[in-house]
């Protein structure tokens, strides 16, 4: 079996589910003939035709609102926003409508939509193309926020997101789109939502992360092993709702917790996880919970983005610091 990239796994999942369910409709800017600016929808127009793969007019709020209307009336729209920095015009539709349609009609209507967007820095893109503002959506009741970090998880989690009866924000780390290849069987098997994935088993410290930072965190864990620290690495994957059971069980075992995310520090999901750990696993902790995050500043343009994204070095330093904590 050929190995494929994360973005190819996205395409593979879309094609699988469109074949399986005629109500799945892909829409967004340039998703048709162009196959999407990252080619995530490459070939879908030829396979499924223009009723199923819809190039929309250039209006993001419209993409959001249209998808809401489609989802409420029995379709399963998978709407693409070209970059996370362009999702904001649709935030009204996502927060005021998609997220609460089921609740405000007491279950009479629902809104099974997937809003996909590439996110994160590190691809030398122009401004507004490097956002990591997942916390905005993680703060919104009624949504799920799902972030894959490998081709297999991209495939399995996207299938799960499309099949989920509620709205899902699906954030694809653009830095990982073509980073690593994996064999991804096209078997239509979804991976579970609302569940963390333990990527590396360890005993000394729990490293909690998601999205593109999985890459640096795993690299840090390898180096730490050489330095005598055995780190457990958890990919949260669904950041809303949080699977705290997996994180707490790990912290109870290791006694130490470092959360790594690319998003700005203040009110990032790291704060939520740290608060939960301190509320529910305080007596297991041998050191303060630490965060290694992006900074509380605007994500810089390409020349400085490497200084912004948490590095392997920064993760290692913080881990060593808490390992030495008395």
């Amino acid at each position, binding site marked *: 079996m050929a190995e494929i990239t994360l973005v190819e796994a996205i395409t593979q999942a879309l094609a699988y589910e469109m074949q399986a369910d005629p109500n799945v409709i892909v829409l967004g800017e340039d998703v048709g003939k162009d196959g999407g600016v990252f080619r995530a929808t490459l070939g879908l127009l030829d396979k499924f035709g223009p009723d199923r793969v819809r190039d929309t007019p250039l209006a993001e709020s419209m993409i959001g609102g249209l998808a809401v*209307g489609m989802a409420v009336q029995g379709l399963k729209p998978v709407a693409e926003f070209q970059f996370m920095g362009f999702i904001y015009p649709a935030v009204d539709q996502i927060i005021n409508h998609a997220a609460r349609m089921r609740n405000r009609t007491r279950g009479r*209507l629902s809104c099974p939509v997937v809003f996909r967007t590439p996110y994160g820095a590190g691809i030398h893109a122009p401004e507004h193309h490097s956002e990591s503002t997942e916390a905005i959506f993680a703060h919104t009741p009624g949504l799920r926020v799902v972030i894959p970090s490998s081709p297999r998880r991209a495939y399995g989690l996207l299938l799960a997101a499309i099949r989920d009866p509620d709205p899902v924000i699906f954030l694809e780390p653009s830095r990982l789109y073509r980073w690593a290849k994996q064999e991804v069987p096209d078997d239509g098997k979804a991976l579970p939502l609302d569940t963390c994935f333990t990527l590396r088993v360890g005993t000394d410290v729990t490293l909690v992360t998601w999205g593109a930072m999985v890459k640096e965190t795993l690299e840090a864990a390898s180096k730490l092993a050489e330095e005598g620290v055995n780190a457990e690495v958890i990919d949260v994957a669904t950041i809303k709702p949080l699977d705290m059971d997996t994180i707490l069980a790990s912290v109870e075992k290791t006694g130490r917790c470092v959360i790594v995310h690319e998003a700005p520090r203040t009110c990032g999901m790291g704060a939520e996880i740290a608060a939960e750990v301190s509320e529910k696993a305080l007596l297991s902790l041998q050191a303060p919970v630490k965060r290694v995050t992006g900074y509380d500043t605007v994500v810089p343009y390409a020349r400085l983005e490497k200084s912004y994204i948490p590095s392997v070095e920064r993760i290692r330093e913080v881990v060593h610091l808490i390992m030495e904590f008395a």
Partner: protein
Amino acid sequence: MKVVARFEVPYYQYLDENSQLTEKLPTFAKDADSLAAMYRLMTLVRLFDTKAIALQRTGKLGTYPSIRGQEAVFVGVGHAMHKEDIFVPYYRDVGVVIQRGVNLSDILLYWGGDERGNCYANNKQDFPYSVPVGSQPLHASGAAVALKYHKKKAAVLTICGDGATSQGDFYEAMNVAGVWKLPVVFVVCNNQWAISVSRGAQTAAQTLAQKAIAAGIPGEQVDGNDIIAVHHRVEMALKKAREQHEPVLLEMLCYRQSDHTTADDARRYEPPKIREQEWKKEPIMRLRRYLEQIGVWSEDQEQALLAECEHNINQTVEDYLHTPPQPAESMFDYLYATLPKAYQEQRELVKKIGVVHHG
């Protein structure tokens, strides 16, 4: 210089403010029973509206947006729709929703602060009220994509106010409906006020109907105080949407004979006497006089209708006032199809706290 395109905005009226016919009646309006049915509904809606305001003033209802003076727009729209069409309301649509299987008591529940007011027992398709102004026309276009995709012979109709036409979403919805040929009808209830901002202060556009032209779809003005015109233009527009997938914008000209909502005081901004002048055009008396002229309405029928409406409304109010609140934990029970484990602890907590009453 050469002119590359010319556009026009037609205006429709059949029954003028003196209840005189200005045009040959459309076919449907030759059926006096149909006109009488709409007259009855407009009367019911006005009495209900008056009762709702009274309930709010006596602390038994939350903020409520009156539809006084705009009854013809809503009743006419509702009467022209087919059951299988989809309605996408804003929040001033009592006259439509009561014709869509929604109980009057549901309307009171909603404005009384109870989500169950959106859970219509007899309507599984229409959208709930949309409070963020102008966001719902996009849902109508999306719903129209679904209807067209599933090859259903039905159309979507959405309503917004004059202020909503300043929103980008309003244009975006018409634009995609035009370019994708969607079966959707956009109705603007132009009651001349967006809370305190007048129609003239909202836009330099001569008409709101002409906003359709930029989106490549037709726009027309309708006398929104003439229910015959409202019904006829909506009926024609829906037929065109269903059969030819041609969207249209209808601007209904009327006047808000009330505050914006019960939380508003229009005396702060509404010029004096304008309401009285506009009252001469109001839709209910206009139709009543016509029905009397053609001999299908009498004072006896009027009195019987008022008594019947009063009885129904009183019964509705009783039902509403005796509806116990939802259990507190219901705030979690419809958030997701299945409540994620992460929030079950919070649900248990609020269940223990229970319903906390005001005051």
